[in-house]
């Protein structure tokens, strides 16, 4: 009994950390740019595919792939922000959402054209393959790795936003865009930078997810983006701390749900999302507006 509960907990925590990697970029982009980016799931997908391809080219070096793959996706993110998204900030919400949705459609099919419509098995990572016994039952090493990386990313983002000059400028522009621009911040360039950084986070999430999920499929971005939406909403749109906690909650909820009440597993997630939106729309850590 205890063993099974501990293992369900561990599985939940690693799922949560893995959703957090994707949700972090999403909530950062929303917090600063005010755009809810459907295409973030595509960046995740592209990250996974680019890492995979580069890994193959570089003689199965996972780390080199993880370093270079997301950088390629960053170029895509830069082009999207600079030449498309920038022109819809002043428009109504539906246009912004649909613009990013258009990119979801485009990238889904582009991936099918380039890498084929079937799914690709992801190679395991040397040194992180296999599993270790915890309380007499095996637990994958790679999941432990994800559980370490997740908090490190959170810590890194917190340090950057709260402790550096860049972070101050980002926070200033997100709370008052005009004022920041009045004191000399080049807001459009900053927005591009934040979007590219968010893209990088999503792509890294994808690169790290590939060995965890085990399969690369053209539609993989669409399923993760909804999980990330749920997490971002629960934590409070734009709040990093909230997204981190939200990811843990959703990870645990879905892992316990799958184990004990599989019929209502998905239902629980969305009822939690609706409940938070109704009773505390600013989320656990979002600022009331």
């Amino acid at each position, binding site marked *: 009994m205890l063993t099974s509960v501990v293992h369900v907990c561990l599985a939940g925590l690693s799922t949560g950390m893995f959703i957090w990697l994707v949700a972090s970029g999403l909530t950062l982009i929303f917090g600063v740019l005010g755009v*809810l980016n459907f295409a973030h799931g595509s960046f995740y997908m592209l990250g996974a595919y680019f890492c995979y391809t580069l890994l193959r080219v570089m003689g199965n070096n996972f780390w080199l792939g993880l370093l270079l793959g997301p950088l390629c996706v960053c170029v895509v993110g830069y082009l999207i922000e600079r030449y*498309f998204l920038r*022109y*819809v900030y002043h*428009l109504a*919400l*539906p*246009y912004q*959402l*649909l*613009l990013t*949705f*258009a*990119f*979801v*459609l*485009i990238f*889904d*099919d*582009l991936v*099918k*054209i380039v890498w084929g*419509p079937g799914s690709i098995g992801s190679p395991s990572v040397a040194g992180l393959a296999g599993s270790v016994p915890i309380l007499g039952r095996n637990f994958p090493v790679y999941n432990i790795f994800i559980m370490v990386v997740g908090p490190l990313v959170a810590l890194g983002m917190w340090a950057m936003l709260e402790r550096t000059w860049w972070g101050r400028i980002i926070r200033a522009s997100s709370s008052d865009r005009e004022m920041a621009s009045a004191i000399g911040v080049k807001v459009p360039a900053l927005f591009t930078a934040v979007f590219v950084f968010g893209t990088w986070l999503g792509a890294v999430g994808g690169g790290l997810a590939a060995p965890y999920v085990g399969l690369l499929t053209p539609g993989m971005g*669409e399923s993760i983006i*909804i999980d990330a*939406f*749920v997490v971002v*909403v629960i934590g409070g*749109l734009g709040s990093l701390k909230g997204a981190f906690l939200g990811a843990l909650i959703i990870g645990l909820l879905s892992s316990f749900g799958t184990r004990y009440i*599989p*019929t*209502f*597993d*998905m*239902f629980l997630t*969305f*009822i939690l*999302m*609706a409940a938070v*939106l*109704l009773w505390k*729309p600013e989320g656990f850590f979002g600022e009331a507006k």
Partner: protein
Amino acid sequence: MRKAFVITLCILSLAGLILLGLYGTRFALYLATRIMILSIFAMGYNILFGKTGLLSFGHGAFYAVGAYGMALFSLHINPHPLACIVAGLCLAFIFSLIIGFFCVRHTEIYFAMLTLAFGMMVFSLIWNLRDITGGDDGLVGISRAPIELGLFSIPIAKANQFYFLVVFFFVLSIAVIYVINNSPFGLVLSGIRENDRRIEFAGLPLRKFRLAAFVISGVFAGLAGSLSALLESNTDPFSAHWSHSAEPILVSLIGGIQTFTGPLIGSVIFVWLREIIERFTQNWMLWFGLILLLIIMGFRGGVVGVLSRIHRIILGSDTQSQRIA
């Protein structure tokens, strides 16, 4: 003169629809039926989206509820098509009333996220309650029984017979939506879109109007769903998925959001374009994404917007003066 032109156009379109029903090939009839079902979905949706200014990602759920309600009634209680459609509509009405009651507490992005959450709840129920809904297989074997009307019965089993049933609901929907749009009620909805504060100051119950728009669009989605279940003779759980809820938004956007005919023309283009693109390539989503990109970046009025812009340029200041008058 303008009015006469519109009436002539309506009569010609109706005649065209009837001629198509009498002489069209099976495939043309199938496409036309799908276009009309999508139009009902999109035009109803646009009461909430274009008219009231609320973006919902949950209307696929009402479409599915209409389809499943219709199918369940047909399989377990009575296969009479009209009774089944009414059952689907009632279920869609109840669901949209309950879900709408919660959703209209918010606007903008929070409204969109709430509808997404509720829509996905319905999806997860349809997906997981296998015993009732058939899970990922959906419900199959929905028959198109003849419509018994006491003294006589109308068969709808053949494609062209069913086509006329859909034409009936299509024309009825257009008429109802036209009346809604041009009623004082419709005017209040436009007012809510333009400035909800003022509507509130005028002493009108904002939430009730939003809820009414939500329920009306939900019921039309249910109608479209139940007709599609009859057309395909099965139900698809993915019709409740959020990505299906995006379809009427795309259709409205192609045609033109804040116009009456926009969703209708958008549906024709959507289904037709998809048919054409799929003939050449598997990757219709890529092309569709590019078209969507083009519309958002450059032609936000949609097809109807572009046409009326051309119309205005040709006529010069003439329409301008007509508008003021």
